[in-house]
């Protein structure tokens, strides 16, 4: 019962916060609601026994990505933003599409029955600590994807610098 209560709280908070994120007129407020949302999600990860992912969620999403968003939002002109329409005129179409996707996903999920069980039970993860277990998986079975991920980040850094820097007058 208690876990369900907690889940109920998180589900409620996450959905409400998501809605707030996408409906705020002021992007800065959107960012702040999203910050809160990320904390809720991180806390929920703790309940799912994924402490490292929770930390990553806060450090990377909240601490890095969202700060970037905030930076960019602050650099933009918000006066005009606060006076114009939030949504495009055809927003009901979007609503229909989103609703259809939700309906499809729910109908698919409803039929889902987990029938697989791996070796990483809660006990194993608690004994090994989550960080170590994840690190072991990451640096053995997923070493190659991990290296590719690092390459992607490198490319992203270079790309971002090239894109955002002011054109040199030559």
């Amino acid at each position, binding site marked *: *019962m208690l876990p369900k209560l907690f889940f109920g709280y998180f589900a409620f908070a996450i959905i409400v916060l998501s809605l707030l994120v996408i409906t705020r007129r002021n992007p*800065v407020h959107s960012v702040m609601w999203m910050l809160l949302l990320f904390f809720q999600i991180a806390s929920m990860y703790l309940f799912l026994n994924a*402490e490292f992912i*929770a930390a990553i969620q*806060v*450090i990377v999403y909240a*601490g890095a990505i969202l*700060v970037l968003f905030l930076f960019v939002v*602050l650099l933009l002109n918000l006066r005009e933003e606060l006076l114009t329409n939030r949504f495009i005129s055809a927003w009901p179409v979007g609503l229909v599409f989103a609703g259809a996707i939700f309906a499809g996903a729910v109908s698919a999920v409803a039929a889902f029955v987990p029938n697989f069980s791996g070796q990483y039970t809660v006990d194993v993860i608690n004994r090994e600590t989550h*960080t170590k277990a994840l690190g072991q998986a990451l640096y053995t079975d997923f070493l190659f994807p991990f290296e590719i991920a690092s390459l992607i980040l490198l490319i992203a850094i270079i790309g971002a610098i090239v894109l955002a820097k002011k054109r040199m007058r030559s």
Partner: protein
Amino acid sequence: MTGLFEAIVGPGSLDYIINLVIMLIIILLKIAAVVAVALLHVAYATYFERKVIGHMQLRLGPREVGPLGLFQPFADGVKLFFKEDIIPADADKPLFYLAPVIFFISALTSLSVLPFFDGFAVANINIGLLFLFAMSSLGAYGIVLSGWSSNSKYAFLGGLRSASQVISYEIAMGLSLVGVMMMAGSLNLSDIVRAQQHYPLGLFAVPQFLGFFVFVVAAFAETNRLPFDLPEAESELVAGYFTEYSGFRFALFFLGEYTGMLIMSAIASLCFLGGWGLPSFVTAGLPVVAAKVLGLFWFLAKVYAFMFFYYWVRATLPRYRYDQLMAIGWKLLIPLALANIVITGLVKIWIKGMV
């Protein structure tokens, strides 16, 4: 009453609930104790600073309020508390209110994972170090938002400067601590302290001298202290991101900054300087409680030594230029920290191969 409760929560779980409540109360008490003690320390850190700086500049520092000026921090607090709270006209009010809170809370939250003596931490979690990173990265929000919501150019520029500074040096700081993590094999701060006992002098600062150097520089930048106090460079930006703040909201920033310093000192003490870990010949004959109390003081001594270092540097070094600051962070500290990681890893493999 019980029936209703069981109807909601489920049968037979009343004891469980009561235990839970008791546990919660204990945790709250712990938090209250830590926060109270920490804030007291923060208050006296300001007094300490004024005294140290004063003497370094051949002045006397505060001495009017109370004996030797010991009540000066309280007088300052009272003054700030009763000051008029001015809000700029076009400020984004919710965020203007929120920003100092975020800043202060993120600093205070970090206290929860610090082990002050053997076996005591509000939350002794496995990812303590990551938690510290997470919280310190949140501080940037308070800075950016305060700068932006003030609707003032000085504050905005100060906020952006500070945020980019904090974000940049966070990377160097995180990387500098990776060496410590590798040597300790854990992210739990208590484990890190314990791991240091097996090393010469009970310090990681010796084998991790590179990491320690990077950490110290990054810690100064993270807390916006001299020589990296660009965000609040009074000659350029008046007071930086909190220019428009006054009264109690300003006090929150003020407290947040000193709490940040305290936390950085604590991290330095825990991760590099051995924390509360006493040599075994000292603790051998003592009762457990005495050993723990001795450990606490040993830990606090290191924290204050580091704080003193903060003040000493402030009294000694001039301010850097902003591009120099960024250059140090990205071109010196990060490569150094990376080199440190590589060296640590290689040495670790080498030692493993020898055994």
